[in-house]
């Protein structure tokens, strides 16, 4: 069974701070996706990483896919209150099924 361990589960920081969220697995994934979800809404896709070692940047967000395609990280620089939400990593397993991490609930305080 493929599993994705996501950490930390909760993160409470002040505006302007940096943070990193990690997703780790013993399994290889063909791709890995990061989503952000706000209360009352479905997850919104932030990025898909496909190639081992790949780094993608989305404004203040930097996503990295491990060389072996077993792990990934999301780094946010100078967090803003608008970054508050639930961040989910999801790896693509067999038959295009997504295996989700437990999620990281981020709260950014002014």
């Amino acid at each position, binding site marked *: 069974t493929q599993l994705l361990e996501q950490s930390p589960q909760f993160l409470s920081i002040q505006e302007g701070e940096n943070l990193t969220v990690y997703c780790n697995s013993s399994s290889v994934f*063909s*791709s890995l*996706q990061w*989503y952000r979800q706000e209360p*009352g*809404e*479905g*997850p*919104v*896709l932030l990025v*898909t990483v496909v190639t081992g070692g790949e780094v993608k940047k989305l404004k203040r967000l930097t996503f990295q896919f491990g060389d072996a395609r077993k792990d990934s990280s999301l780094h946010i620089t100078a967090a803003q209150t608008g970054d508050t939400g639930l961040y*989910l990593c*999801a790896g*693509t397993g067999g*038959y*295009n*099924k*997504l295996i*989700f*991490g*437990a*999620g990281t609930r981020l709260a950014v305080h002014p």
Partner: protein
Amino acid sequence: SAVISQKPSRDICQRGTSLTIQCQVDSQVTMMFWYRQQPGQSLTLIATANQGSEATYESGFVIDKFPISRPNLTFSTLTVSNMSPEDSSIYLCSPIFVARGSDTQYFGPGTRLTVL
């Protein structure tokens, strides 16, 4: 970006009743996934639906409880049958689009179900 809509957006239901959730997308999809997200939790896959064949259910989910229909390439329904309070969750559809040629999945806005 993809347009995915779900109906209803939320509902409050009585124990023992059933609710059918509709998922409509604006372009053809190859596969449709249905997920459940229990309060404060991450997403759990219920089943995978391909058009023209029966849905494939994950461990812990059965067709009698969560029947799925997929009559065409842009529409699918999930029914939550004989509901109990434990079924209170957000239910989300997630398609893979034919035109995009990748395995990236997008999500509908979800249906928030409360069972009393």
